[in-house]
C-alpha cells in the first residue's frame, strides 16, 4: 500500500512538473485548445501500469493542482471536461488493445480530450459557431496524441520489467 501511494505520488509529481513546464511554452499555433498535452504521457502510462483507479486519481489531482499553480479558473473547466472525456475513452478502449498498441489509446484519448473541451466550450459560449474549430482540434488531437502516445509506448517498453505494484 505504501509502495502504491509512493508510486502514485511520484507519477503525480512528474505529471505536474510536465504540466507546469508545458504551460510556460508560448502557443505555437494560434488555435484555442491546441496544445501538446505532454502530461498525458503520465496518464497513459499510469492507466496501463498502475490500473484505472490510481490513474484516475493522478489525473484529477494533476488537473486541480495544475490549475491552482497556473492560476486559471477558466482552464480548470476545460481541463476537467477534456480530462474526463479522455480518461473515459481510454478506459473503454484499453480492453481492446494490446500493450504494443498503447499509443493508439493515446491518440483516441487526445481526440476525445479535444471533444470534451469542445463540449465545455459549446455549453459555455452557447453558440455552434465554435464548431468551426472541431476538425482542426481533431487533427491536433491525432497528431499530439500520436506524439505523446509514442513517448508513453517507449516508456512502457523500457520500463516493462519493472513491476508497478
Amino acid at each position, binding site marked *: 500500500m505504501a509502495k502504491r501511494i509512493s508510486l502514485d505520488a511520484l507519477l503525480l509529481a512528474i505529471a505536474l512538473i510536465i504540466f507546469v513546464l508545458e504551460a510556460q511554452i508560448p502557443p505555437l499555433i494560434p*488555435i484555442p485548445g491546441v496544445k501538446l498535452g505532454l502530461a498525458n504521457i503520465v496518464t497513459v502510462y499510469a492507466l496501463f501500469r498502475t490500473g484505472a483507479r490510481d490513474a484516475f486519481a493522478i489525473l484529477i489531482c494533476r488537473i486541480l493542482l495544475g490549475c491552482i499553480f497556473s492560476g486559471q479558473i477558466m482552464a480548470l473547466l476545460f481541463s476537467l471536461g477534456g480530462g474526463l472525456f479522455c480518461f473515459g475513452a481510454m478506459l473503454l478502449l484499453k480492453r481492446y488493445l494490446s500493450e504494443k498498441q498503447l499509443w493508439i489509446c493515446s491518440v483516441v484519448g487526445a481526440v476525445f480530450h479535444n471533444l470534451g473541451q469542445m463540449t465545455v466550450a459549446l455549453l459555455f459560449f452557447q*453558440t455552434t459557431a465554435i464548431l468551426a*474549430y472541431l476538425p482542426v482540434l481533431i487533427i491536433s488531437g491525432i497528431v499530439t496524441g500520436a506524439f505523446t502516445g509514442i513517448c508513453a509506448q517507449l516508456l512502457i517498453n523500457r520500463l516493462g520489467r519493472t513491476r508497478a505494484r
Partner: protein
Amino acid sequence: MWQTKTWLRLIAAVLLLCVGLTVWLATRPAASTVVEIVQNGTVLQRIDLAAVTEEYSFTVSDGNGGSNQITVQPGRICISAADCPDLICVHHGWLPDNRAPIVCLPHQLMILSVDDATTDASIDATAQ
C-alpha cells in the same frame, strides 16, 4: 482485438476527413459583412464591416480585470491587444481574412460573423 493496421486506416480516414473539412471551413465565403462581439453569451456589439470607413479601436473589459483591444478597419476586424496569458486571440489575425471566429477563452470573448451566429442572444438582438 483489431490489428494495428486497421487502427491506422481508421485514424488516417478521420484525419483526411478533418483536413477536408478544415479546408472547406476556412475557404467558404462569408455571406454577410456583419460581425458580432459576444461576451459570456451576450452580444455586446454588432458591426457592419462594409459600413466602416475609418479605422478605430476600443477596449472591452471582461469585468475581472482583463481586457481586449479591438481594432476595426474597413471590411475587417481583429483583437489588436490583450492581457490574456496565451494571446491566441491577438495571433488569430483579422476576421474575415481568417474565417474562423476569434476566440479569447480566458476572457470569454468571441468575435464572429453573423453567418455563424446561432446564439439565443443574437436572436434576441435581432428581435429587438
